[in-house]
């Protein structure tokens, strides 16, 4: 009885194998499928490499002096080389932001308000955006600089903004190459809904307040937006 069962089982098992021709065809499909995946990934790596290349040509960022009022779905992810790129702004306008604690060193362009009534973001993920309806950094009042947390292929200028701690310092360089130093007063993570009121709130205890902002929290694929915002409140300490 037991012998018969084993025989039946083998019989059934043999029947479940595809025919040799079909097995050959499936094997070939696996080979080609794998090759397609490899080729696609290599192409994406190549695109990514090009998209995230370093910019050394000054003319490539000529549009930085325009006020950005529209957010791009495909922002420039090439990193401008600070030393070789020629980038000029008005003498008293912010040109560059340097935050040693998180390895930030990027140019600054002017951003305005989008038609959706939000603060616009820079056209390049490696540069900051000074909101032109706020005062210039270092002037009395509230100044706002935003920056990308990420692009589609690589990290943005403010990827590590959330790591900043109170008391840490950073510099803003101006068009005339003068610099001002700011000290971080507060690092706040807020929901997107709560962030705008905090972002636009100036404390009267600080004369020259500079708020930095980027996205944080989880990325919602449905809204294509991060759930939170990181806002860094800082004050001018040195001219």
């Amino acid at each position, binding site marked *: 009885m037991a012998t018969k069962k084993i025989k039946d089982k083998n019989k059934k098992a043999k029947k479940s194998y595809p025919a040799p021709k079909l097995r050959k065809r*499936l094997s070939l499909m696996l080979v080609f499928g794998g090759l397609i*995946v490899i080729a696609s990934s290599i192409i994406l790596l190549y695109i990514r490499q090009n998209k995230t290349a370093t910019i050394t040509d000054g003319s490539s960022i000529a549009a930085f002096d325009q006020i950005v009022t529209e957010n791009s779905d495909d922002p420039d992810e090439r990193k401008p080389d600070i030393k070789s790129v020629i980038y000029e702004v008005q003498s008293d306008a912010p040109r560059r932001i340097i935050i040693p604690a998180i390895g930030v060193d990027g140019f600054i362009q002017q951003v305005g308000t989008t038609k959706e009534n*939000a603060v616009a973001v820079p056209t390049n993920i490696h540069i900051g955006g000074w909101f032109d309806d706020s005062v210039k950094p270092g002037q009395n009042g509230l100044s706002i600089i*935003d920056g990308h947390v990420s692009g589609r292929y690589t990290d943005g200028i403010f990827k590590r903004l959330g790591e900043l701690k109170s008391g840490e310092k950073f510099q803003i360089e101006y068009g005339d190459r003068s610099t001002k130093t700011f000290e971080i007063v507060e690092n706040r993570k807020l929901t997107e809904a709560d*962030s705008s009121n905090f*972002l636009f709130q100036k404390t*009267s205890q600080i004369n020259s307040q500079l708020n930095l902002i*980027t996205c944080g929290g989880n990325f919602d694929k449905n809204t294509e937006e991060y759930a939170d915002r990181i806002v860094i409140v800082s004050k001018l300490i040195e001219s």
Partner: protein
Amino acid sequence: MTAPIVNATTGYACDGVKADLWFGNDESGSVSSSEFNDALDFMYQISDSFEYDSVTGVQAGAFAWDTSTNDIIVPITEDFADTDDTGLIQDTNVVVDGDSKGIRELYSSKAGGGGTNLTVATQHMADLVDAGNGRRSDVPQIGIILTDASEGQLTGDAANWITAGDNLRAAGDGGVGIVLVLIAEAATAYTAGSAGPTVDAVAGTGGLIVTVPTYTEAADPAEGHVDSVTDAICDTIETIAPTPVAPINDNDNISTDEEDSGPNNGDGNNDGVKDSEQTSVTTAVNNILGAYTTTETSGDCTQITDVSFYEESSLAATDPSYDYDLGLHGFTVDCSSTGGTVDVTYYWDKVYDTDDWNYRKFNASTNTFLDFNDQVTYGAAVLGASTVTTVSYSVTDGGEFDGDGVANGSILDPIGPSEASISAPNTGFSQTTNITLYALIGAGLALSTVGLYGYKKNKR
């Protein structure tokens, strides 16, 4: 005749006005009994259009006249319409309550019957007003003279009638506005005859003339003459005596009536003293909220001289990144000395969620908005049965937050809760990392290897 007006219950004519109405009814021989009844119905409906209140509303009285004068028939202190009496005589459906008040009960029969002397009638009305007879002080006085006088009667004694008109307009302590109701022959004489200039001169500046073809039409509410005369009375009230400005006890530019009508029986800061009696506390209707709010000051500056409420759009500049949905509230306060500091507490009309509020101040001297949120303290106060949000802060005369920017003994203070009108930026994307791509390459290699192995095995 259509259904009569029976005691207005909704919507009084020029609602809220105070006035004393003096009716002078023509009882000369040319007015038949039927026309007399129409005249009574006419006056009754006119009087019924007003709200009678000896303190806050209208009073009315009547006298009859022909070549002589009959004394007061309905005293002006009476409830002329008497809401308990209803119905029109011409419909024979008059119902009275028997309290010997109002035109329905006091003025039921024609007393005159002689000739027509408008000079006597007009002068008699002036004399009645001058003598008082229940006239209230600081209340508009309106004389309504009804007549069917002929052209000759209107113009025959023109000079004296005009003089009597002048006397009537000067009578009492503030004069009398004249409304002449010209019926039948009198209407024709005015509109088509030569009586126009005389009648116009008698009515004078601010007076009005209403013409009505017949007494029957006058009494018929469907003809609209009741409304015409009522409107004329209202217009005359407005012309000769605009609504008097309510008294202000505490020099804060807000009337005592308004302050006393505020929350907590006029004690908007619950300090036990009516706000209308304090120079340092003002309760007023915030027209943006449509509700009462209270401003309380202390410190060096306690004479509030003005309280105002502003839409952001009404200011000389707008705040680009902020909205002021609840508007801005402001005051002007005088200080005991220049450079003084005022401590302010503003009592809102209810409890608000202040978490998202960002108080900002408008500086009128620079047309800029300043952040002020750190200067204010949010709280709550119990006012009677209600709890309201409070906001407290200090401003120094001539300081950064003094709206006039000058140390001049006066602090100007437009300020309000704002919320950011611009959303925070969206600065990120779903990122494809190198690790993902390398993993995909690995997966592709694995697939290909397995496929190749299978192909070779099956080839054998």
